[in-house]
């Protein structure tokens, strides 16, 4: 692309590109996010290309490879524009039929339409599918429309308009003020007011100032940042440019997990395009504002999501947090004033600048504004990424959008906020979600991981899982986290093995509160939350493990006998069929039995038994 040197050239280019995208052209949109790629979308794209060529439609039909559409469960996803027909689980074999029937004749292909598993109703258009109908997709709006590797696409849909408005029509102070008034709070977990954070950094003495994008999305069960970086990297860059202008930084870093190769690739492409076009670099669009962005790849350490640890890692050291103050706004990267925000936070900024803080602050609740992206996963029908206004209830997300637990199983709890969060039971599902209500329930907003659990999930085991995670990831600098969580893990493990004692519960509580009060960084201070929240809502389950040596969810292996209850056994033989170790013997019309010397305790039989007869 030719470099643009002024606002006029920008406006001209934008006008040309917008015309190009406003045409009511037939477009076949195929999702190329990580989820759909794993279910085979690349081959589907190739098939479309060949088929369109063969059918002689190359001039009239365009194929778009886009980022994640969010509904990963049903991938590969194909949408047909301008009608917005939604086809799911499309295979290479379906492609000729789509071209022949839908593209040429305008007919629908019934088997590719989404069918609600409960009501059996089928849906034609994307916006009608229940998974999308209740969402408010602002940040994600363009994810399913643009090719993330083409800056032209982003510009054609109004991209970089907010940045241009900021540098030509607003002073840095006005930008900060607008973001402050919008009420935007950090989407990485803490929920600190973004505008205020910018103001601190802007007012800090010392030069140069650094801007950092935290894309070290390490929370297990959260993948919205990955999806944004993969699907719309320019949106994040635009947010960073605006922030850089506001605080007076000329250098930005994106610290991104090495586990996200596609995100890194797409970001590199986006940065190179931005430089070529003159949106990044020296004297942007002829102004005296200069800004460049560098990618720093993480090296696999969860604690690097903590801001001071992240900066240590950029500096090439072990990613260990340090006490604050001094806060990064005063003394951050290389000892200079630095501002660090999360990917999703930056992605909100362009919308606030374009549409105004008034518009933005009308979405959400009194103290939590805008939308939030949640990663809905676990025991739920519609797994994927959902963007909803703050203030929606958990029940609406899990049941209306997510379709509830699969196979009609009973909902038990939802885990929010990853290793720093907690489990919320059924009775609190109707609380409107915002930063503050979740804290009062013993969870946190966190980065937005939302893992649904059903009756087959043991809450003690979940607590143990998170403690194990924290133990693996504890940097080892402070004793409460390094040793305290180890002791907690030992106690909880003992309980899951049937060796727990009644006094353990009190000991756990005491340790948890001690660690909360004394650990050095956010990782350590919040590490006891999964234990505290499960103790708060599921103490009975802990007691069943301790007093009755029983795991009510049939989950903890040490407490399962791996025997068949002949009274319950339906004599169907399914357990024999699914056992990978050949440990089940069964004859028609007789009860099954398990040979314990062959059994590998993989629980496949338990998961498949229709009568819960394996105890």
């Amino acid at each position, binding site marked *: 692309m030719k470099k643009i040197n002024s606002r006029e050239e920008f406006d001209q280019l934008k006008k040309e590109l917008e015309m190009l995208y406003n045409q009511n052209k037939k477009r076949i949109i195929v999702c190329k996010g*990580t*989820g759909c*790629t*794993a*279910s*085979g979308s*690349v*081959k589907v794209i190739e098939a479309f290309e060949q088929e369109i060529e063969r059918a002689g439609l190359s001039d009239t039909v365009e194929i778009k490879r886009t980022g994640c559409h969010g509904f*990963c*469960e049903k*991938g590969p996803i194909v949408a047909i524009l301008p009608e917005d027909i939604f086809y799911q689980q499309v295979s290479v074999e379906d492609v000729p039929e789509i071209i022949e029937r839908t593209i040429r004749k305008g007919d629908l292909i019934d088997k590719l339409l989404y069918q609600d598993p409960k009501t059996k109703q089928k849906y034609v258009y994307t916006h009608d599918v229940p998974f999308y109908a209740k969402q408010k997709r602002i940040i994600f709006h363009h994810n399913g429309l643009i090719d993330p590797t083409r800056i032209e696409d982003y510009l054609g849909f109004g991209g970089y308009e907010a940045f241009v408005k900021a540098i030509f029509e607003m002073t840095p102070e006005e930008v900060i003020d607008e973001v402050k008034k919008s009420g935007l709070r950090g989407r990485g977990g803490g929920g600190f007011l973004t505008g205020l954070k910018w103001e601190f950094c802007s007012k800090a003495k010392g030069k140069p100032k650094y801007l950092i994008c935290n894309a070290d999305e*390490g*929370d*297990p*069960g*959260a*993948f919205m940042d*990955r999806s944004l970086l993969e699907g719309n990297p320019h949106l994040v860059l635009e947010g960073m440019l605006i922030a850089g202008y506001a605080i007076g930084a000329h250098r930005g870093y994106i610290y991104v997990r090495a*586990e*996200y190769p596609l995100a890194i690739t797409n970001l590199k492409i986006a940065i190179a395009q931005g430089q070529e076009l003159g949106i990044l670099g020296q004297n942007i669009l002829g102004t005296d504002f200069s800004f460049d962005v560098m990618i*720093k*790849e*993480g*090296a*696999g*350490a*969860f604690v690097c999501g903590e801001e001071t640890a992240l900066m240590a890692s*950029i*500096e*090439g*050291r*072990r*990613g260990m947090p340090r006490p604050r103050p001094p806060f990064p706004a005063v003394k951050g990267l*290389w000892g200079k004033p630095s501002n660090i925000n999360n990917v999703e936070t930056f992605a909100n900024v362009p919308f606030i600048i374009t549409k105004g803080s008034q518009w933005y602050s009308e979405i959400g609740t009194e103290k939590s504004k805008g939308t939030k992206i949640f*990663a809905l*996963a*676990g*025991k739920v029908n519609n*797994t*994927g990424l959902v963007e909803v206004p703050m203030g929606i209830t958990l029940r609406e997300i899990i049941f209306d959008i997510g379709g509830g637990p699969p196979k009609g199983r009973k909902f038990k709890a939802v*885990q929010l906020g*990853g290793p720093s969060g907690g489990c919320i039971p059924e009775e609190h599902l109707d609380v409107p979600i915002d930063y503050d209500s979740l804290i009062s329930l013993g969870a946190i907003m966190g980065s937005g*991981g939302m*893992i649904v*659990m059903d009756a087959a*999930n043991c809450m003690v085991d*979940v607590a143990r*899982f*998170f403690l194990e*995670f924290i133990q*693996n*990831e504890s940097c080892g600098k402070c004793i409460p986290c390094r040793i305290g969580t180890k002791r907690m893990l030992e106690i909880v493990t003992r309980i899951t093995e049937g060796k727990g004692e009644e006094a353990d519960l009190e000991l756990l509580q005491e340790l948890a509160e001690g660690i909360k009060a004394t650990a050095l960084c956010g990782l350590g201070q919040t590490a006891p939350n999964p234990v505290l929240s499960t103790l708060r809502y599921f103490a009975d389950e802990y007691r069943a493990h301790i007093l009755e040596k029983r795991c009510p969810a049939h989950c903890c292996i040490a407490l399962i006998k791996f025997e068949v209850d002949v009274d319950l056994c339906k004599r169907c033989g399914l357990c024999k069929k*699914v056992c*990978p170790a050949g440990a089940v013997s069964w004859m028609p019309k007789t009860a099954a039995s398990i040979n314990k010397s062959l059994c*590998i*305790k*993989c*629980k*496949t039989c338990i*998961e498949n038994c229709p009568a819960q007869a394996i105890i």
Partner: protein
Amino acid sequence: MDAKLDLTYVNMMLQDYKQKRGALIPVLQKIQEYYAYIPEAAVDLIAEGLNIPASEVYGVITFYAQFYTHPRGKHLIRVCRGTACHVKGSKTILEIIKDKLSIKEGDTTEDLLFTLETVGCLGACALAPVIVIDGYYYDKVTAQKIDDILNRLSQGNELQSHT
């Protein structure tokens, strides 16, 4: 093994990064990309080249999960141990693979065919439980699927690519 190793690449790499701030992690990433692990002999060269103590280099290598001090197997199996995978049974999947290969997580089989690792979360929660072998994602893994995949790889067959 290290004695015979050609360290030209390490020296070359260091020339490029000598003057740069925060170079240690990118240097280690490049070296590992080239050798597939960080050879012991490279540590002193890096320390000298970047003018930092060897203990610090070693400290960084062992701090981050991504760096390896030993050669790894031909096939890298990564089992996702994120929350969504956990509630869908990834622990059992891990146990089965450990059992089949007779190694612990983090280890490599004696024949250098397989390395087994766990990863905090791959961010592919809709595919849970998920494992990644040599960069290919396997979704909704079951005990039977693992049998098939491992058998195919042990017999020297390559994986079917998704991409």
